[in-house]
C-alpha cells in the first residue's frame, strides 16, 4: 500500500471511529436515530368537534387518536408523555379520549401544565403516571349542566312558541324546570358523577369511598392532589419524561414532539363562513346574540 492509501486509511479510521464513539457516548442508538419518548401536547377544551365552544375545544378524540396512532406506528417511541392544559369539556368525548389513553400499548405519563381540571383530570387518570407542578390547578371532580328557558325572550320578541312532545319527559329541556324534571336531570348528572368517580378510583387505584369523599367539585393544587393520590410526582415536563423513560426501560431518554401535520392555509378558509356569520350576528343583533348562541350550544350539555 502506498503512502496515500495509508494516510487515507488513517483519516478514515479517525473519522469513522469518532462518529461511532460519539454515538456511543452521546446516547443510545435508538435515541440517535430519533427521539424515544414521544411528547404530545394537548391544549384547550375537550369536545367531539373543533367547532364546539367549550373553551376553544382544542382536544378532540379524533386528534388524540391520530396523535397516538403516530406514536404507536413509530417503533422507536418507547413511551409517550401527554403534556395537558385543559379545563375539561364534554363527557363522552373525554371518555373516548380516556379509552384511547388506557388502551395505548406503551407507557403513558401525563405532565399537567397550569390547569388540568375536571375532564382534563378525567382523561389524565387513564395514564400510567401523573406528574404535576405543586401549583397546578386540578381536581373539580364533578359534572355541570345548564338549563336555559327561552320563554321570556320569546315573549319579549313577540314569538309564541309551543312545544309538542311524544313521551312523558321528552320536553324537559324546553320547559321551565318542574320539581320532577329537576329530579330527572339531577339523577342524570349523578350517574355521570358516579362514572367520573369510578374512573378516578380505577385509574388511580384508589378506594372508591375515598374518591367519593373528594369528588365535591372542588379544585386542588398539585401538592394537595398528590397528598390525595390524584398525582404521583411533583415536577415539570422533564420529570415526566424521566418517569416515562423509567416505565419503558429507556436508559437515555430523548424526547421528540409528536404533532399533526400542519393544516394548509387554504383549508383554514373553511372556517370563514362561520366567522362571517358571527360578525353579521353581532353587527345586526348586538353581542347578546352571540352570547345567547353560545349559551344555547351548552344547553343541557353535561360537562366535566
Amino acid at each position, binding site marked *: 500500500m502506498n503512502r496515500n492509501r495509508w494516510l487515507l486509511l488513517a483519516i478514515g479510521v479517525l473519522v469513522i471511529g469518532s462518529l461511532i464513539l*460519539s454515538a456511543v457516548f452521546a446516547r443510545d442508538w435508538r435515541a440517535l436515530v430519533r427521539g424515544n419518548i414521544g411528547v404530545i401536547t394537548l391544549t384547550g377544551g375537550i369536545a367531539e368537534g373543533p367547532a364546539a365552544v367549550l373553551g376553544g375545544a382544542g382536544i378532540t378524540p379524533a386528534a388524540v387518536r391520530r396523535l397516538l396512532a403516530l406514536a404507536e406506528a413509530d417503533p422507536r417511541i418507547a413511551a409517550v408523555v401527554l403534556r395537558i392544559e385543559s379545563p375539561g369539556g364534554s363527557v363522552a368525548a373525554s371518555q373516548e379520549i380516556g379509552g384511547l389513553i388506557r388502551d395505548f400499548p406503551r407507557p403513558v405519563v401525563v405532565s399537567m401544565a397550569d390547569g388540568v381540571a375536571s375532564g382534563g383530570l378525567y382523561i389524565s387518570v387513564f395514564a400510567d403516571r401523573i406528574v404535576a407542578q405543586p401549583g397546578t390547578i386540578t381536581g373539580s371532580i364533578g359534572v355541570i349542566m345548564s338549563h336555559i328557558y327561552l320563554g321570556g325572550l320569546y315573549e319579549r320578541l313577540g314569538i309564541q312558541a309551543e312545544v309538542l312532545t311524544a313521551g312523558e319527559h321528552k320536553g324537559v329541556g324546553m320547559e321551565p324546570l318542574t320539581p320532577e324534571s329537576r329530579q330527572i336531570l339531577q339523577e342524570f348528572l349523578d350517574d355521570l358523577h358516579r362514572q367520573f368517580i369510578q374512573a378516578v378510583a380505577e385509574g388511580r387505584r384508589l378506594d372508591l369511598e375515598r374518591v367519593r369523599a373528594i369528588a365535591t367539585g372542588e379544585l386542588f393544587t398539585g401538592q394537595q392532589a398528590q397528598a390525595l393520590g390524584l398525582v404521583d410526582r411533583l415536577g415539570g415536563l422533564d420529570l415526566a419524561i424521566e418517569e416515562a423513560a423509567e416505565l419503558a426501560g429507556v436508559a437515555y431518554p430523548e424526547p421528540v414532539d409528536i404533532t399533526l401535520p400542519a393544516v394548509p392555509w387554504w383549508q383554514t378558509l373553511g372556517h370563514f363562513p362561520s366567522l362571517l356569520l358571527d360578525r353579521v350576528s353581532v353587527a345586526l343583533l348586538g353581542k347578546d346574540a352571540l352570547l345567547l348562541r353560545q349559551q344555547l350550544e351548552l344547553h343541557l350539555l353535561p360537562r366535566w
Partner: protein
Amino acid sequence: MMGPGFAEMVVGILTRPRDMLRQVGDGRSLGPALIVLAMVAAITGWSSAVAAPHNADLVGGPAPLALATIAGGGFLLLVQAGIGYGVARLLGSRGNFRGLLSGLALANVPSVFQAPFALLGVTLGPAGMALNALGTAALSIWVIVLSVLALRETFVTSTGRAVLIYFLSLILVLFLALAVLALVVGLLLPAFF
C-alpha cells in the same frame, strides 16, 4: 493522461492542495470529486446530528439530515460554482467550469474532521463543546482558503483576484437568497390578508 485516484485526491487536497487543485482543474476528475463531496457531506451531516440531535429531529433524524446535507451540498456547489464562474468571466478570467466544480468540491474535504471535534463535544462537556465550536470555525477557514485556491488554480489568476471572485460570489449568493426569500414572502403574504 488519467486523473488522480480517489486516495490521491483526498490525501492530496490536504497535504499538497495547490498541486491537486491544478491537477483537477482540467475537469476530468469531476465524477470522483463529486463522490468525495457526497461522502464529506454525509459525514458532516452525521457529525452534526450526533452533536445536536434536536437539529436532526427537525428533518426526521440523522440519516435524513445526512441525505439533506448531500443534496444541499450539491446544490450549493452548483450555485457557488455557477456564480463564481460568472463573476470570474466578468472580471476577465477564463477557466474550465468542470474543473471549477471539481476544485470547489474537493475544497470541502477538511470538513470530515468535524467528526473528531463532534466527539470532543459529546464527551468533554462544555469544554468539549467550546473546542468543537473552535475546531468547526478553523475547519471553515481551511475550506474557504482551499476554495480560493481552487478559483486561483482554475482561472490561473492571482490570489488577490481569486479572493475578490470568492467574496463577490458570496455576496451575490446572499443577495440572491434574500431576493428569493422576498419573492416567496411577497407571494405568500397576500394569502393571509
